[in-house]
């Protein structure tokens, strides 16, 4: 058997000496995008290390239930997949990027299969599919309802095999910027409280989404937009931040996700009168219309008094125990655990809940941001392939295609970088960062805590920047966030320990979350139309004449955030009205 490289299980590469360690490429994040990028950069000859604030397999990619899209089957083609994606995006996606993603999807899925993913098979032994929302063909490949987990573990196993170094439970606090170029990451080693600089010729941000900016959300507690904020602070523009996806079926109370695969397998949505109300809103696709459409329909049913306790019902009973237990075991277990409901016998109360962000750090189709040395892919990036609304099972695909392309591109870029910033520059930067972080601990304790501010922020965002928005609500939200930013400066960390100080990392995360919230609200205020996930009651129509463009927010040192635009790239598919 091959040996792999035992180094990856060691805890440290520093030999207890230096506070600066050098690599060609540092990947910030060990979800699907990060691990895929790291593998590809290593294959292309770069020295690579990955850092992650949680062990790689704890990354939020593991929560993806439903599956991953690719047009492989007969009667399907990447063009149809692309059109579905573009239509789903409400024509805000950049069509050149979508073409790349959809045309390269089949080979990426096959490669995953070769790596060992145990995809569901059709009777002939080839890969089998299930139906998903917004897709005109069944092109979603899956492993039960643990697709993300199956992919995440397979990639982690491959990472072990490759010997790429992983810094587990290292928390990134800032990007090392020198002369406008990104040359490393400063991170906190949670196990001993050391602040260390990982110096590199390129930094690849793959830090995932920012779900916790909203309360409730389907996202894990670790999804706090860290990498988006770090890149934004380093001068990289963020794009499409107003496009926040609410998933139509999140569990009552806890907000956990009931995968779209349930509807893909044939589940119904019912109102309090027992009607399949989606027949009214989307006569053709019904429950499988795109997510923004279904979420709004639910919201309207609930607002019209046809909800039950603020929810509608997800009914799987007619699918029978076999389908439920074999293909959807995880959500069956979750409904049992959290609501004591057995979906074989009873429908489950669900409602729209914050789920995903289409926006993020602006990149090109090789994951390059406009900042030299800074790359991004996965949920934290915006290529943009999802535009105003992401189709289910397109996000895992996004992480893999652009993780791979970016990994290769970064490996080739680092060959052109001949030297790293000096040790002195590194130490100076590190000292300043040390002081800033220590500041949280040294501050006098006030009544403000990170937990309190977090909850206020999340509730505010869900109320004012959710499924429906309007000018006055957004203005209130912006004022609210600016106020929270002021109060944030007085939050003190009362835990003075060095080892595994989570109070400190939570406080740092809150800072990231506030940046993400601010740019989201600014963009939502700016876009004076309704498109995709942005539904403004005061501008109810889509307005292609004025708003067929992306909104960017950029922050330069010491200045207020500034808005700018870039046009949407249209290749073959001129914008049309969306009907499902």
């Amino acid at each position, binding site marked *: *058997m*091959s040996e*792999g490289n*035992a180094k*990856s*299980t060691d805890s440290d590469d520093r030999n207890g000496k230096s506070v600066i360690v050098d690599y060609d490429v540092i990947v910030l994040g060990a979800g699907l995008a990060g691990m895929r990028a790291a593998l590809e950069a290593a294959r292309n000859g770069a020295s690579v290390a990955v850092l992650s604030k*949680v*062990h790689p*397999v*704890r990354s*939020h990619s*593991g*929560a993806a239930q439903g599956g991953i899209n690719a047009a492989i089957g007969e009667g399907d083609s990447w063009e149809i997949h692309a059109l579905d994606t573009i239509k789903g995006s409400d024509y805000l996606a950049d069509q050149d990027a979508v073409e790349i993603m959809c045309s390269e999807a089949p080979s990426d899925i*096959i490669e995953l*299969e*070769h*790596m*060992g993913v*145990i*995809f*569901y*098979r*059709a*009777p*002939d*032994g*080839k890969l*089998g599919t299930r139906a998903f929302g917004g897709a005109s063909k069944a092109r979603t490949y899956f*492993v*039960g309802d*643990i697709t993300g*987990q199956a992919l995440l*573990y*397979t990639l982690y*196993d491959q990472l*072990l*095999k490759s010997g790429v170094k992983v810094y587990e439970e290292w928390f990134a606090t800032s990007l090392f910027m020198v002369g406008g170029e990104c040359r490393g990451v400063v991170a906190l080693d949670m196990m001993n409280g050391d602040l260390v600089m990982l110096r590199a010729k390129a930094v690849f941000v793959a830090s995932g989404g920012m779900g916790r900016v909203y309360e409730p959300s389907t996202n*894990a*507690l670790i999804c706090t937009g860290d990498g988006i904020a770090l890149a934004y602070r380093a001068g990289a523009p963020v794009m499409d931040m107003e496009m926040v996806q609410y998933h139509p079926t999140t569990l009552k109370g*806890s907000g*956990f996700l009931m995968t779209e695969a349930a509807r893909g397998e044939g589940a119904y949505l019912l109102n309090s009168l027992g009607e399949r109300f989606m027949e009214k809103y989307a006569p053709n696709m019904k429950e499988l219309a795109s997510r923004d459409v279904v979420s709004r329909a639910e919201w309207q049913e609930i607002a019209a008094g046809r909800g039950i306790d603020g929810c509608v019902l997800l009914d799987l009973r007619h699918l029978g125990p076999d389908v439920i237990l074999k293909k959807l075991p995880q959500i069956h*277990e*979750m409904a049992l*655990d*959290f609501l*004591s409901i057995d979906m074989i016998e009873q429908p489950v109360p669900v409602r729209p809940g914050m789920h995903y962000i289409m926006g993020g750090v602006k990149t090109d189709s090789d994951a390059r941001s406009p900042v030299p040395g800074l790359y991004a892919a996965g949920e934290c990036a915006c290529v943009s392939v999802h535009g105003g609304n992401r189709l289910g099972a397109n996000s895992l695909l996004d992480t893999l295609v652009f993780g791979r392309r970016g990994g290769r591109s970064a490996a080739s870029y680092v060959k052109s970088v001949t030297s790293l910033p000096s040790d002195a520059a590194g130490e100076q930067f590190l000292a300043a960062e040390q002081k800033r972080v220590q500041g949280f601990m040294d501050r006098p304790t006030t009544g403000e*805590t*990170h*937990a309190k501010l977090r909850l206020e922020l999340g509730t505010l965002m869900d109320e004012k920047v959710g499924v429906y928005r309007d000018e006055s609500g957004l203005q209130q939200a912006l004022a609210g966030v600016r106020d929270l930013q002021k109060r944030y400066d007085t939050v003190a*960390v*009362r*835990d*003075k*320990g*060095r*080892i*595994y*100080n*989570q*109070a400190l990392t939570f406080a740092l995360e809150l800072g990231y979350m506030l940046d993400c919230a601010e740019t989201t609200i600014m963009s939502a205020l700016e876009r004076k139309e309704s498109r995709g996930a942005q539904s403004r009651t005061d501008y109810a129509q889509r307005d292609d004449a004025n708003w067929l463009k992306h909104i960017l927010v950029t922050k330069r040192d010491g200045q207020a955030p500034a808005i700018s635009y870039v046009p949407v790239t249209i290749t073959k598919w001129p914008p049309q009205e969306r009907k499902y």
Partner: protein
Amino acid sequence: MEWTVVVGRYSPPGEPQPKGERGAPFAAPYEKAPPKTYQTFKVDLPEHAMVLDALIAVREYQDESLAVRCACRSAICGSCAMWVNGHARLVCTSKLREHTVDGKVTVEAPPSMPIVRDLVCDMTPFWKKNYSVTPWLENKQPIPQGEEYRVPNAAMEELIQEVSCISCGACLMDCESFAVNADFMGPAALAKAYRYTADPRDAQTTDRLDTYSKPSGVWDCTHCYECVQQCPKGVAPLEQILKLRKMAVDAGFTHNAGTRHADAFAESVRDSGRLNELTLMPKSLGLFNIPAQLQSLPAAFNLLRAGKLPPLIHHAIPHVERIKNIFKKIGGRFK
């Protein structure tokens, strides 16, 4: 409603020390684990709340220095396994209602693992074991060009049980074999070993079986069932271990203590209708493996002193030929 949570706390020397009452040292086999202090918190949470909800409430509103790993809150990320009333559990799906005994629920880092701080243990032993089983696909050649390996769905479904593993470590934390032998590969890693060995796309089946049959491998499991009971995802590691053992024996890996033990067991029953514990030990260790047999002598003397040594003269049960016939009917290696 009000719940009472007793939290086992620990900070390494040199760090600010938590409040609370000093606990007693742990009983064997965990006597080496550092003692903790126990602090009692009261939290107000709904009837259906989970133990993790209580810990988060403590951390957010009472004592922000409480360290606890968690991310998904729904049994997906595998972060939150720890001891709840002395058994390894995921706290995010353990209901307070079900775990409150005598008015309280006690949570702490498991003493079977090295501790970092409070409820956070060091999972390095777990990851090292995982790494030791070569946990990746060694592709069967040739790799199909531009298309997938064609395999029946049943072969993939067979592996999904292990692929459901979230690496929470609950199984290892309570594994009785691991408690006495830190080198034991352990339940989760061996389940993972089965996952790759049984994958029809893997080329290394025989090499793998050889490795896993070595000391500290599949034969070191004592069938205590803890891993089956504690696993929150139905992985049932012991079942995967038993499948591996069968594959290993079928592939001819019988030159190890484990298979010899099983063989001696079967031979004794075949020949006498009962278990001859005296010949079991030398046969398992290898008849000519004198040093290993000598090592087991003190144990034998202790048994003798306690009157628990099996009778020195081993009698066959009446009608032992019937047993022999059964063996003949089953066929295989013992007829």
